């Protein structure tokens, strides 16, 4: 029982980071209908910028983190303005390929500027795990859980009460109607990219603190697909729940099935689960079911 509890808790904490990255993904999809294959690269850029500020300019972590967030806000804005805005109304494959192209571009830029070595953050979170009962949890993961909670709070406030948030929801549900109501759809698109960039940066910085950064970190972008599919592509709560479910499932498979099959099932299992879920619920757990009209 202790074993099971431990791996479930470990699953929840790693899942919370999946949730963070998935959140950015969902935000973009929800308001613009764009699937972002460059999510992992946004995370990478954010992590490197923060690292650079902290290490090269000796800025205290908390400030460099805030500067990074501001920077990434404008960075997301810029990406939307330069690349994605022209793609409005294009077929889905073009948009997928555009974000794939964007991902290899961003990744190379990171490589040109920061090289390929694995870099590490100066010690920010204590390496000593926190003991809760018989459980040991690293500080980084606790921060991940806290930031998830904070984001969840901010977003639900933002989407329910602020004018911009309501406008974003309006755009998501019907672009044309939103336009005719005088909502500046372009601004909403740009804003959602900016927010998504911020959210994934938080994920990137936390990941960087777990195990250092190199360009392979961007692969995390692909890992969130099972998460967002499970939760439903356009559901914020789905991204959060989906992340935690995938994290837990992954660890349970790792703990119980891996020893039976000789390992490796942990990595592929999320994708198997994803296909099964898609066959039963084609729009995920919380996704909006599309009604088709002739």
């Amino acid at each position: 029982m202790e074993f099971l509890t431990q791996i479930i808790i470990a699953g929840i904490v790693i899942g919370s980071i999946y949730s963070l990255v998935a959140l950015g993904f969902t935000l973009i999809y929800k308001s613009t209908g764009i699937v972002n294959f460059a999510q992992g690269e946004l995370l990478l850029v954010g992590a490197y910028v923060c690292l650079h500020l902290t290490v090269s300019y000796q800025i205290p972590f908390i400030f460099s983190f805030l500067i990074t967030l501001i920077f990434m806000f404008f960075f997301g804005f810029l990406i939307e303005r330069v690349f994605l805005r022209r793609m409005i109304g294009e077929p889905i494959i073009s948009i997928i390929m555009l974000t794939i192209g964007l991902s290899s571009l961003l990744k190379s830029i990171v490589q040109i500027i920061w090289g390929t070595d694995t870099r590490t953050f100066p010690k920010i979170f204590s390496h000593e795990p926190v003991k809760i009962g018989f459980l040991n949890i690293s500080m980084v993961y606790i921060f991940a859980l806290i930031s998830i909670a904070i984001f969840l709070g901010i977003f639900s406030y933002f989407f329910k009460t602020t004018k911009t948030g309501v406008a974003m929801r309006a755009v998501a549900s019907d672009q044309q109607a939103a336009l005719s109501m005088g909502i500046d759809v372009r601004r909403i698109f740009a804003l959602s990219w900016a927010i998504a960039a911020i959210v994934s940066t938080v994920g990137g910085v936390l990941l960087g603190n777990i195990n250092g950064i190199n360009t392979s970190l961007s692969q995390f972008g692909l890992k969130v697909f099972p998460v967002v599919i499970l939760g439903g592509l356009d559901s914020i709560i789905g991204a959060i729940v989906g992340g935690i479910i995938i994290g837990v499932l992954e660890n349970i498979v790792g703990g119980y099935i891996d020893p039976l099959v000789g390992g490796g099932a942990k990595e592929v299992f999320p994708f198997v689960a994803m296909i099964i879920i898609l066959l039963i619920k084609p729009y995920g757990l919380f996704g909006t079911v599309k009604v088709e009209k002739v």
Partner: protein
Amino acid sequence: MKKLFFMVFLIFSISAFAADTIKIGAIFDFTGGTADVGKPYAEGVKDCVRWFNEKGGINGKKIELFDVDYSYKVPNALAAYKDFKMKGVVAIHGWGTADTEALTKFVAQDKIPYLSASYSEHLADGKKTPYNFFVGASYSDQTEAALQFIKDNKGKTVAFIYNDTGFGRSPFFPDGENAAKKLGIQLVDKQVVDLKALDATAQMLNLKKSGAEYAIVQETYMATSTILKDAKKNGLTTKFIGLNWTFDRPLIKLAGDAANGFYGVSPFAFWSDTDVEGIKFLRELNKKYHPDVHEREINYIQGFSSMYVLLSAIKNVKGPITGESIKHSLESMRDFSTMGLTPPVTFTPDIHKGVRAARIYQIQNGQIKPVSKVITLQ
């Protein structure tokens, strides 16, 4: 399209005009999945060529190195290889598992010796892979050395931790399993940790249940760091021993305190082994070539010593320098000294792994310290 071909032709015809040089191809990874270790390795190889050329080349001939970054992608390696072949290279210095495996058959057919840093046992058989060589102890031999070390320290149980790739499984199945049996050490657990894993809690808890005293790790820095951190977090008492790709300063940077006590098997000398002649020499060389570089990773030393062996073999060739004559020259090397960068190197027509010895090191308070004599295998 024709224009493109014309340009390709043009470029070739330019590069075909070259003085009488010894042409060597090099396939590196600067940007792919293994770039973090591939880059210092490539620098080692290049510095060695530069040093030889500054000494006047080989018997008066300069060495011309064609280097290609193949991003750890097989088609790129193939393209580079065909290109090398056309340029008439006599030997190739490769990099990792991907390129080496893909080219094994071709180099045998075209008789071009191929040195690389893929220390897989199945590349060591001179009969099966006649033109593949590596300067280093094979992963299987490193595992055996680690097991020997466990036995010397009265350990009774061991676990293997690896990733599900050719690189990861190579040391253990079947060689590592057999060696454990031979030495009377019980293999109690096997755990797979992905190369990019951020969390290994489940695996570490399973390992804890198995009660293994020692665990041998075949991973790269990132996964090793994950393993060590999660082992510490979950209060494991298992002692971890990593093979050569897990063990150097980058790991200390990544894993922090968790790296303390970690053992590593290395057939190569570390930058901190200042009593070794080769390291002293490399330190001098780096002062000259790269005044701003003060520390070098083990991969640099690997690359340098591997190229050093190849170039020395070419130097010993009597008569015309061809792929075949270089192969013979390599195969006649007996106890060749690499200035102590590795144990003495021996190749025979049957055995193409240069080194059959390794030393165990340990990370103590963030420093890499040797903790055993050189363990020589039969």
